[in-house]
């Protein structure tokens, strides 16, 4: 229990440091105003709302990525490409043969379910490579990473469908009458479902057992192959939900840009949450907070007029600082030093 407490402390500390930095630099960061958009719907706007809105996709992905990381000790680097595929499938089902349909060719729920199935199939593909063929996860998912965006373009014949139905925009934008962006609710829904699953099933326990020691978990009657496979399928589901939000934001898709580099952010969220990237114990809440911290960092940088292309350089510095300070060797050293200082004080007191 004590270990989990220190683990969740890492992303919360990062969160607090960032918030404090913003408070000192410019308190207007915390201003949230209620306004009306062009259609006349109420909308809350402000930097904090942007964080809640744009961090949602990352939070949803972080759920699946945490499970995959915990079970396999590797990461799925194909999520960005898989999102492109799932998004492309959604648009394909909604548009049918016409790339600019006046009305939807299928209900949105059907399109979403089809995308879920497709994304889970691709997840299963990764899962088979990892669990049955015993290929390292990063290498196995490299395949889909290379092919994903090409497959996405191929599904829609490289056309760029545009959906004009305003209802489709609800998932990535606002539902009329509700001032908080919908992605936040979707993310919260996913988090609650994940929390319930972890609470009422043994998925979490089994995943950790497989991640900590595969052979001993098999001796205890678990099926490590199936559990590894399952985590990839769950990540596939997360990918489908993220894809729905992503394509709904634009009501269209750009195959080479959609969800670009999101896999790196998702892995960072897991690492920032203090989870070991080599598998084993995990803390879902830590990862989810980690995801929002990354979005907070991005938004903060944008606020200070950092170019979007130059953004990664600053992110890298922050990441390095974070991992250096949370590295076990550094922490041990720091503890040693603080102990030395304490003992020195004590001896001084005696003298």
């Amino acid at each position, binding site marked *: 229990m004590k270990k989990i407490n220190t683990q969740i402390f890492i992303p919360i500390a990062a969160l607090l440091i960032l918030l404090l930095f913003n408070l000192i630099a410019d308190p207007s960061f915390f201003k949230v105003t209620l306004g009306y958009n062009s259609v006349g719907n109420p909308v809350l706007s402000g930097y904090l709302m942007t964080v809640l809105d744009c961090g949602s996709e990352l939070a949803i992905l972080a759920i699946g990525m945490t499970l995959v990381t915990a079970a396999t000790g590797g990461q799925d680097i194909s999520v960005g490409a898989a999102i492109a595929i799932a998004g492309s499938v959604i648009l394909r089902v909604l548009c049918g043969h016409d790339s600019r349909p006046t009305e939807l060719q299928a209900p949105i729920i059907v399109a979403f379910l089809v995308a879920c199935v497709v994304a889970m199939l691709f997840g299963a593909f990764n899962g088979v*490579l990892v669990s049955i063929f015993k290929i390292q996860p990063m290498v196995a998912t490299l395949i*889909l990473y290379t092919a994903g965006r090409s497959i996405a373009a191929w599904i829609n014949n490289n056309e760029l469908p545009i959906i004009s139905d305003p209802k489709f925009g609800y998932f990535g934008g606002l539902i009329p009458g509700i001032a908080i962006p919908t992605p936040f609710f979707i993310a919260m829904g996913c988090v609650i479902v994940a929390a319930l699953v972890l609470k009422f099933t043994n998925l979490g326990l089994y995943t950790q057992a497989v991640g900590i020691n595969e052979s001993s978990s098999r001796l205890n009657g678990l099926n490590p192959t199936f559990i590894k496979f399952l985590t990839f399928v769950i990540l596939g589901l997360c990918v489908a939900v993220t894809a729905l939000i992503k394509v709904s934001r634009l009501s269209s898709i750009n195959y080479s840009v959609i969800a670009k580099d999101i896999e790196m952010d998702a892995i960072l969220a897991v690492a920032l949450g203090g989870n070991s*990237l080599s598998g084993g114990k995990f803390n879902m809440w830590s990862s989810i907070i980690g995801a929002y911290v990354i979005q907070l960092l991005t938004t903060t940088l944008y606020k200070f007029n950092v170019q979007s292309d130059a953004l990664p350089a600053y*992110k890298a*510095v922050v*990441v390095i600082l974070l*991992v250096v300070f949370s590295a076990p060797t550094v922490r041990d050293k720091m503890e040693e030093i603080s102990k030395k200082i304490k003992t020195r004080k004590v001896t001084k007191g005696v003298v």
Partner: protein
Amino acid sequence: MTKKLKNMTDTNLLLTITIVVFFLMYIGAIVFQGKGFLKPQTFFNILNANAALIILSCGMSLVMITGGIDISVGGVTALVSMCCAVYLDYKGGNVVGSLFIALGIGLAFGLVQGFLVAYLDIQPFIVSLAGMFFARGMTTIVNTNPFNVANEEFVALKETRVIIPGLGSVNKLGKYVNAYVEIGVVVAIIIVILMFIVLRWTKLGRSFYAVGGNKQSALMLGINVKRTKFLSHVICSLLAGIGGYVYFLHVGSGAASHAAGAEMNAIASSIIGGTMLTGGVGNIAGTFFGVLSLSTIQNIVSSAGLDQAWWTGITIAAMLCLFLVIQSVVMSRKNAAMKK
């Protein structure tokens, strides 16, 4: 056959598969694609276009053999080409200076990443991910817009051709044209040979395999594990610096989007060449053939008229998948045979 299989080391077995597949593929290309692939220049063009990738992959294989990974090499390549371009054109620098810049950038990345990975025990993936972000971001900070380098000294070096005596073909005008390679290829070949010798016959080279295979036993053999890991990252980034310069020499321009996805191509080439990400298994000769296989496939796809951009991605992925499964099956059968 099985006995021979059993006696072969992992490295040699995977290397043999790669070389056989490469030759089969090239022969297949000649048979199905016609005479284009018979011209020596077609082969040398593959080398010309991929000299930088060969150098990057050598470094990547070294890190993978030691049990790590470095995904910052593509970013370093872009940063090197942008910095050198700015130095040559805007600051009025000379070629020798730009070469030192390239080596300096590579060395700096290697020292920092190696220190973080080896001495602070941070996962190499995260460290080099941050390295990649940093390099890509810095590239845009140095200069946003892509531009061609006009420095005369540099252009002369870029246009230098090394003629291969005795090989050539008759062009459309009926004139005999000698086959040529660019300077980058010569550098790449020298590096491949050097790395091959170091990894196979020196104490340092063998210690890379030992650390990647089993850290504990390497420690007990008296190998300085931390220093070995540190060195692997330094060499990899240094090679990324050299590779970046060779890339720059090939394209002759600086742009933030340069070498996009080069790290993934380098990893893919290393894997096709029989290097395993778990460490301890790999061969530079395999890596060399891995790059050639990857680029031959690309050439076949584009010359087969499948010009739509998606086909390249899909075929490379299919090939990668095939190789991974072959590796996995071969290794597991071999392990089973060993147990018997």
